[in-house]
């Protein structure tokens, strides 16, 4: 019986894949706003959406401009409305195991409907704006929303130094919460608030709503014109701490700096430092009960043929003193260490595999927590592009160990299925 079911499943999957391959258009019929504006295909900037390749990172830092363009447009002169839409449907399955495990959960939902807008504005491209408005979890949410003044110094269109203000992703240029191909969050974001912002506490199991810091940043890049040359990216800024209570948010700004270098077009190394500010009511000697927490991390990425391998080490210091000797249970007050490794396989020019239509990946993410059980997540994913901007994605998630950022402490496994369409 089981072998018949397996055979039926294989036949059904093969038939659906064959049908999808036959009916799928070979060229992009509907492509998002940046692609429409620039005339370039999605894969010019993305290795796999939403992960940016070197060209995409240059384009983003440069205020959504290619230096060769030389001339940009006022909004009323643009050939295309700089707005895209995204619809994401998700199927979820979760099952805990061990003592005290609850029943299994299964659910199908419209995960997110979003409008995304972005463009350089003005004939000299001096200003760039980007914003995301989404409907998820029953609420309208503002995602990233920022403005950037380009080319404060240096040649026009090269983004040597820019000033950015608003709500955005503070992370490494090549490794950030907004560039996750595997949708499972990183511990370095969810528990530590390094690769992007943490939520305000509680479970962040759902990935529908994303979190960002509000801040001011000076950023820039020096891009090699030669193939295989060296590209530098840098950013320094101040942000409004996400988990800070009270009303005087601007009185206790967080600070951050990041730097990354890319060489030989396949190796990238980066480092990030954040000084977050958290409530520390346990220490009565600190004014207004606030305390700085140092966080830092290093990461590297290597591109080998169709493989992209990324590894990182991130660390968040705990509070150095706790007043009465009691350690608070808040995750951001514990000392945390995180190791992660991820591999993506994106076939191109490989016999018997559909080129630019398939992405496979896996990630191992481990966190050690002061005075709490360590925790690991292993995730495997597969993606199939029905069209250049429409894909199906499946993820298998295994969680071993302790509670992190409000998620249950029990071992568990889960499955996710996504249908994502961008227009």
């Amino acid at each position: 019986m089981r072998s018949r079911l397996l055979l039926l499943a294989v036949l059904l999957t093969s038939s659906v894949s064959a049908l999808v391959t036959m009916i799928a258009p070979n060229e992009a019929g509907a492509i998002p706003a940046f692609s429409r504006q620039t005339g370039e295909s999605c894969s010019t900037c993305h290795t796999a959406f939403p992960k940016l390749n070197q060209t995409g990172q240059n384009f983003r830092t440069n205020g959504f401009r290619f230096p060769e363009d030389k001339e940009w447009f006022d909004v009323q002169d643009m050939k295309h409305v700089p707005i895209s839409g995204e619809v994401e449907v998700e199927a979820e399955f979760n099952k805990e195991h061990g003592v005290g495990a609850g029943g299994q959960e299964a659910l199908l939902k419209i995960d997110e409907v979003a409008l995304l807008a972005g463009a350089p504005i003005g004939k000299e491209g001096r200003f760039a704006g980007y914003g995301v408005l989404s409907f998820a979890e029953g609420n309208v949410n503002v995602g990233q929303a920022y403005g950037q003044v380009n080319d404060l110094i240096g040649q026009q269109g090269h983004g040597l130094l820019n000033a950015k203000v608003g709500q955005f992703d503070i992370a490494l240029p090549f490794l950030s919460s907004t560039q996750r191909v595997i949708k499972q969050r990183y511990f370095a974001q969810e528990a530590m608030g390094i690769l992007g912002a943490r939520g305000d506490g509680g479970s962040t199991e759902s990935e529908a709503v994303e979190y960002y810091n509000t801040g001011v940043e000076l950023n820039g890049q020096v891009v090699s014109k030669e193939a295989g040359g060296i590209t530098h990216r840098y950013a320094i800024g101040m942000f409004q701490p996400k988990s800070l209570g009270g009303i005087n948010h601007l009185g206790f700004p967080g600070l951050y700096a990041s730097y990354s270098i890319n060489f030989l077009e396949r190796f990238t190394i980066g480092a990030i430092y954040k000084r977050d500010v958290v409530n520390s009511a346990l220490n009565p000697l600190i004014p207004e009960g606030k305390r700085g927490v140092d966080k830092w991390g290093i990461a590297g990425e290597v591109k080998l043929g169709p493989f992209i391998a990324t590894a990182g080490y991130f660390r968040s210091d705990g509070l150095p003193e706790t007043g009465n000797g009691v350690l608070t249970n808040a995750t951001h007050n514990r000392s945390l260490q995180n190791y992660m490794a991820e591999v993506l396989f994106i076939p191109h020019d490989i016999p018997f595999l559909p080129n630019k239509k398939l992405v496979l990946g896996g990630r191992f993410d481990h966190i050690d927590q002061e005075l709490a059980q360590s925790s690991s997540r292993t995730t495997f994913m597969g993606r199939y592009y029905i069209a250049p901007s429409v894909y199906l994605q499946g993820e298998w998630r295994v969680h071993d160990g302790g509670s992190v950022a409000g998620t249950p402490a029990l071992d568990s496994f889960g499955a996710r299925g996504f249908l994502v369409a961008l227009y």
Partner: protein
Amino acid sequence: MSMRNIWWLVLGAVLAGWPITADATDRKTPTAPEEFLTMANPVAPTAEILKEAAALYDSRCSKCHGSNGNGKGSATKDLHVKPRDYTDKSLMQAIPDGQLFWIIANGSDPDITEMKGYKRKLSEEQMWGLIDYIRSFGR
């Protein structure tokens, strides 16, 4: 063996088993049909044609092919196969006008390049004008 050990084993095997040299993808530019290969450019490279083609090249081609035609535009950083160097005189002499026209019209190998076809967006005269302009880089 724990899940973590399996993961590291898979990661190590993948990285060890994929030598860096394996990234060099061969150029497999499609060859135009015979009737195109024998075609001569019917549009003369007048100043007016070159001026119009230069504007077209700047807006549509320079991001990959480079402002000076050397194939090192800003959008080529992650391309497995880089665009050809139009400033290489001997290389360009070996490529017939009809081959260039056919690639501009129909695109190159979609599996390994980003070069798409422009026959629905540009007129034949515009495409031949672009060939006049491309050839001016090597002069």
